[in-house]
């Protein structure tokens, strides 16, 4: 949220105008400044900037954006990508629900629970984007089945351990760093998705699709900022190498995961 009385920054415009290589740091800055009052988080900011400089993320390159642009001219590719993202959001919601159930600090428990509820809703929002961009494209019986990808978590429910989730553990700064990095990549994906959906979405549905995308984008920034705040609070618990070392190590891990997903090293 923007500070009272100050104009709200158009975070989407700022991030999409930024050079791809600057987007990780800028997404984090926008997330921190989007809170009321804005967050400072000096240790987090320094660790992130150092890590990005030493381990440049492949998902923050022009090459990565170009692969997405080239692939997403295929409507079928984009439709299946939306379905896959819905499923992934639903699975992630379950992991967060599990993590919330294991938190021994009530404030953290509520924050992670809110995050899980958001991601559960995001699974449905990806399907809403599918319906808006590709009306009638999905076999009706299959489309009805797809609704199960959202676990349907609500704030009225009590978090519990989801069978099969590997995150039945007390949340640590390490897990918050991983979540923060992953959420920044997802924020960047929303820039790519918006441009692609504009190519395929029928004009009459585009305003509604844009509202869904706005909602997803705002939530991602909120998830980046709350994990940044927790990371800052727990910075002294980062272990050997401190927060700088932990953030750098986890960014390197996530860069490897990203490159492995593509079966190649992505760089400009």
């Amino acid at each position, binding site marked *: 949220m923007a500070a009272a009385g100050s104009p709200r920054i158009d975070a989407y415009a700022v991030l999409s105008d930024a050079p791809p290589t600057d987007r990780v740091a800028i997404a984090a800055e926008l997330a921190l400044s989007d809170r009321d009052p804005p967050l400072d988080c000096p240790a987090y900011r320094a660790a992130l900037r150092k890590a990005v400089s030493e381990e440049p993320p492949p998902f923050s390159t022009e090459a990565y954006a170009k692969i997405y642009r080239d692939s997403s*001219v295929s409507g079928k590719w984009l439709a299946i990508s939306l*379905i896959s*993202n819905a499923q992934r959001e639903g699975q992630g919601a379950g992991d967060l629900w599990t993590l919330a159930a294991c938190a021994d600090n009530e404030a953290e428990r509520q924050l992670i629970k809110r995050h899980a509820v958001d*991601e559960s809703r995001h699974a449905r929002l990806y399907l809403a984007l599918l319906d808006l961009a590709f009306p009638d494209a999905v076999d009706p019986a299959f489309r009805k*089945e797809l609704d199960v990808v959202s676990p349907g978590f609500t704030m009225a429910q009590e978090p519990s351990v989801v069978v099969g989730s590997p995150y039945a553990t007390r949340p640590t700064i390490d897990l918050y760093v991983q979540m923060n*990095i992953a959420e920044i990549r997802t924020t960047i*994906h929303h820039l790519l998705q918006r441009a692609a959906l504009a190519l*395929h979405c029928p004009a009459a549905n585009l305003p509604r699709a844009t509202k869904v995308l706005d909602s997803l984008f705002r939530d991602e920034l909120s998830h980046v900022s709350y994990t940044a705040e927790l990371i800052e609070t727990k910075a002294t618990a980062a272990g050997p190498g401190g927060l700088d070392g932990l953030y750098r190590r986890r960014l390197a891990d996530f860069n490897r995961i990203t490159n492995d997903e593509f079966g190649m090293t992505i760089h400009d």
Partner: protein
Amino acid sequence: MSSHKHPDPVVADAITKLEDEGRKVQIIGQIKNGKIEIDPSDLADLAAKHPNLVFLAMNSPFDPVVPGSD
């Protein structure tokens, strides 16, 4: 659909093809044991033309916790 020509020739050609095809997309699949299964012929066709069906949203930690390591 964009009315101006895309600066990337590969993308521009694909958009033209998309327009020629009448923007038709058909997806067939099922949910089996809780997992989405897209029709294999759809996927095979897609994988041949666009091998990078990734770009997945990530929101939870990415390094699974080994029981007993906490």
